[in-house]
Structures are given as structure tokens and as C-alpha cells.
């Protein structure tokens, strides 16, 4: 397996696109899902994950093999997503995840995004929808660890390598992210209850 990966990397470095596609095949869906959870919609997830793969292809020569290929790949994917989120912040000071305050309470800006995406239809589960909404409201640093740890199930060590942080930092960041997520969910639930009362 490892040898095959090595061979594919070498071939890809020489410019063989087929080898490269074979190399990233098993990571494509995970990478796409990370991007989707990070960015919140399928179009962006597609573009950004593809951008990441192109970056990976272009900088394959700089891959030294000191970490595993998958870790390196996910590092580029997460960084591309984080860059995109930062760009969005700069481009648009009004975040999608911010709410508009009205007399009736708060309205999400990203109604179409959280509304009827295919995934949402699949997950009819109300708690899932709530948690996705809250994840989208998390700060990018909290969001990435929740996505990697709790959604994608990477180990602390892997997350440390992907984010290029010591494990200690990851530990505290994950715990803080989980607490932040819980707090957000709780607020949301209260809001929902209030709405229900009003209705």
C-alpha cells in the first residue's frame, strides 16, 4: 500500500494526471466533506476542494515525505478552506453566519444555504440541522477542529499534524470548540422555544 502510494506520488511528480487521480481518489470524498462542513455549501466545497487538489498537484514536488501523504493532503485542504473563510471575512464584513436583528428576533442571512441543500433533505433529523447551523456559526479555528475531530474522526495526533500545531494546543482547542458549540446550540434551542411560544 505504502509502496504503491510512493510509486503514484513519483509518477504524479512527473506529471502523470491519471496517477495523481488514483492517488487522491480515496481522499477526495473526505476532502470534499471537510470543505463542505467548513464552508457550508456544496458549490463552494466543490470549488475549494478542487482548488486544494490543484495546489497539491502543483506542489507535489515539495512533498518530502516527512509526514504521511494523507496528512499533507488534508493540511492543504484545511488551509485552503481557512484561507477561503478569511477571504470571505475580508470581502464581506457581514458574515453569512451573522444574524439580522429584527423586532421578531434574529434572522439568519444564510437562509438559502441552510435551507434545502440536498444534504439537509437527507438529514431530516432536527438535531442534525441545529448542530450544522451552530457549527457554521463557530469561529474558523473551532470549526476546523470540530469538523476534523467529531465529524471526520481524525485522531488528536493527526489533527496536530494537519494543523501543524502541538498536540497540547489541539487538546485545549478541541475542548474549547466543543464547549463553544454546546453554548451556541443551547442559545439556538432557547430561541427556538421562544419562537414556538410566540407562534
Amino acid at each position: 500500500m505504502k509502496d504503491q502510494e510512493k510509486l503514484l506520488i513519483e509518477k504524479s511528480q512527473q506529471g502523470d494526471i491519471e496517477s495523481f487521480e488514483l492517488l487522491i481518489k480515496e481522499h477526495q470524498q473526505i476532502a470534499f466533506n471537510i470543505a463542505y462542513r467548513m464552508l457550508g455549501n456544496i458549490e463552494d466545497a466543490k470549488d475549494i476542494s478542487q482548488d486544494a487538489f490543484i495546489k497539491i498537484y502543483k506542489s507535489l514536488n515539495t512533498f518530502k515525505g516527512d509526514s504521511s501523504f494523507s496528512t499533507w493532503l488534508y493540511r492543504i485542504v484545511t488551509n485552503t478552506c481557512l484561507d477561503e473563510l478569511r477571504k470571505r471575512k475580508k470581502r464581506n464584513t457581514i458574515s453569512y453566519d451573522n444574524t439580522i436583528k429584527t423586532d421578531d428576533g434574529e434572522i439568519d442571512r444564510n437562509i438559502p444555504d441552510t435551507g434545502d441543500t440536498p444534504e439537509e433533505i437527507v438529514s431530516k433529523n432536527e438535531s442534525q440541522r441545529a448542530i450544522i447551523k451552530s457549527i457554521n456559526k463557530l469561529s474558523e479555528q473551532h470549526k476546523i477542529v470540530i469538523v476534523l475531530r467529531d465529524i471526520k474522526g481524525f485522531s488528536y495526533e493527526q489533527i496536530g499534524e494537519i494543523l501543524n500545531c502541538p498536540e497540547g494546543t489541539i487538546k485545549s482547542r478541541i475542548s474549547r470548540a466543543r464547549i463553544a458549540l454546546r453554548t451556541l446550540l443551547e442559545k439556538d434551542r432557547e430561541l427556538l422555544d421562544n419562537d414556538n411560544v410566540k407562534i
Partner: protein
Amino acid sequence: MKGGLKMTCFNFEELISLYIDNMLDEHTKKIVEEHLDECKECKYNYDAIISNINICKELPSIPLPDNYQDSLHEKLVALQEEPKKVSLDKPVPSTSKKSKRKSNWKIYATIAASFIILIVTVGSLNVFNMGSSSSKTEMAKDQSMEIPRSEAPSYGIATDDARSEESAPELKMFSANESIESEGQTFDVTTSEINNRDIRQKQSGRKVINNAFVNLDIEEYDEKFDQIVNIISTKGGHIQHSNTEYKHYVRENPEESLKRGNLSVRVPESAFLDTVNEIKAIGIVTNYGSSGEDITTQYRDTANEIENLKVQEERLREIMLKAENVEDILAVERELTRVRGNINAMTGDIQRWDDLVELSTINISLNEVVNKDKRIQTVSDNIWDKAGKGFIRTINGLLEFAEIIFIGFVSFLPIIIITGLIIGIVILVIKRLIRRD
């Protein structure tokens, strides 16, 4: 032990995730479990987080869009077709790199800033130095301008003397002074050649006396001086005269003293231009001039005159033989001496001209300068000493000034008193006059 490590809820928040992920050692795990049993609030938090994690875990992994791989493939192919347009060495974008880039920017900015400071400092220092060095060169130029004017004619005289019959030994002395024996020898050869040369032979071709002067600013005076001596000797010339002196003698550090000097050298006419060019290459030329004096007609006239005088001399000798009484002999003798004298003088002229034409004269003025651009000047050791002296000088100046003011005031005091009295009286008188009115 148990009491010491008793959980606070704040601590517990930090440990919840680790406990959930089973990342704690047995001991801490036990404590956490105990705390969860005790504290309801923490238990509630724990349950909430666990349920959240479980929801997250159950979130479905959504499939890739249908055209995902195709469009990626297209992008990759497009990339491969135009690999040059997209910079391949774009660094792997990672947060660490980002921060590195940021810190790089900071480093670059620091380096740039320090460079600017350095340049400004050096620049201001240079302005400082150039002020002094330019004044030095100006001074040097003034001096060198004077040298050719005052010394060139004196050379004429020197060569005049030298070209008289006794010139050879005298010139030998010059060369001996320079302690360049080989040159002395070559010169001997040339003089004897000139002496033996038939004047008529020399009448063919134009007679041009070449002269040049070169003023040079140089570093390393002694080295450059030797270099010039070498050039002259290789060209078959000699040094006719040289002089070196300190223009700026530093008593504390003689090595820093600057010299100036001048040389008058003679080189064969054929090597004249080469020599001048080589000398010019030694240092910075601050003044250069050359002249070619055509003396062909003068030379021919003199040569003819000599011929005539020689004929006259022959005749006089014939008359001398025929002369019978003492008076005639004396008269002829007198005439013969005059003619002989004329011939000698004119032959001397011819020989001098020959020499001047044969050996061109180059006057070189050397002026040693310190090039401050080349090495960083060390701060003088006695900078404090100098500063102290300067300080004392200023204080003394101030004291002197105060003294002068005081003396002036005291010496003017009588006048001031008298004028004060007069003005007082005048005012009193005026006041009284006004009152009367």
C-alpha cells in the same frame, strides 16, 4: 491526595473532551469520573457534549457531486497544458507558512529599515568626509597648478645648464641621486650618441620638442612612485629630477601622513605617448597637458650658422698661418676665439635641442590622498581627548568673550556716567521750564 486534586468545575471543562476521547491517564480519569458523580452541572455539560459529538458522528458523509472528478480532471489537464503560466513554485499554503510569510515581511521590513538607516548614516558621513577631501583636492589642485607654471621654466634653465659641455657628469649626478644606476648608464649612452651625431644627419625630419605634465591624485605614495620609476626605466628613460615632501605630517601616526612630490622624467620620443598613458593610469588625473614645439626652422638656421662659422674658422686659421707680426696674430686670435665661442654656443644649442627632441620631458606631480570610500575609518582613539579639548576651547572662548564685554563695559563706564549726568540735567532743566510755563 484526593483532596488536593479536587476538581473545580472550571478545570473540569478543560478535561471533558479529553475524558470523552479517552485521552486521560487512569488517575485523572478516575478523578473526572468521581467529579461527574458529584457535580450535576458538569454531568449535564458532559451529556450535552456527548450528545453533540454523537450527532456530529452521525452526520452523513455527502457524496461527491456528479461532475466532480471530471471537472477536476479538466482543471488538471488545463494546468498541465499551461504549466509555465502558473507559477509552479507557489509555496504550499499553510497557516504556518502564512505566519512565516508575515514574519518574513517583518524581517524584510526590519532589514530594509536598517539598510535605510545605514545608508543615511553613511551618506551623512560621506558628506562630512567629502567636504574635507574635496577641499583637500582643491588645495592639491591649486598647488599642482602652480608647480608647472613655476617649475617648467626652471626646468628649461636646468636643461640649458645640463646641455652645456659639462652636462653629462651633472646629469649623471642627478641619476645617481635617484640611485638608478641603470638609467645613468642609458643616459650616458644617449649623450655620447648625441655628441657623435652628425648635425647634418639631424637636419632631415622635423624637430619637435614634446612636453607633457600630468598631475595625479594617488594613494600609497611610495608604491606609486616606484611604479612610475619602473615605467620610466622600462621605456628607456630616466628621472631628471624628483622631490618628495610631506604635505600633511601626522606626528602621532607618521603612517597616516600624506606626501606629495614631483618628478621630471625624460623618455625617448618614440615612447612618449605610451609612457604618458601609463602614468595617467596610475592615479586620478587632476590636470594634464602636453605640447609639441616645432623647432625645425630654428634648428636648421642654427646648423647652417655653425657651418658658416666653421668655414670662417678655417679661413681664420689659414690667415693665422700667414700672419707675420704679433699684432696680426693677436687680432686673428681674438677673432678666432669669438668664432669658436659662437660655434660652441650654437653646437650647444643644437645638442640641447637634439636632447629635447630625442628625449621628451614629462613633469609629474603626485599628490597623495586618502580615499575614504575604500575602508571604514576607525574612530580616533583620542576622540574623548579631542572632544575635551574642543570643549575647553569653547569654554575659554566664552570666558574671553565675557571678559571683553566686561572690560568694554568698565572702560565705557565714565562715558556712560557723564552722558547719564548730562541727560539727567537736561531732563531736570526741561521739567523746570515746563513747570514755569
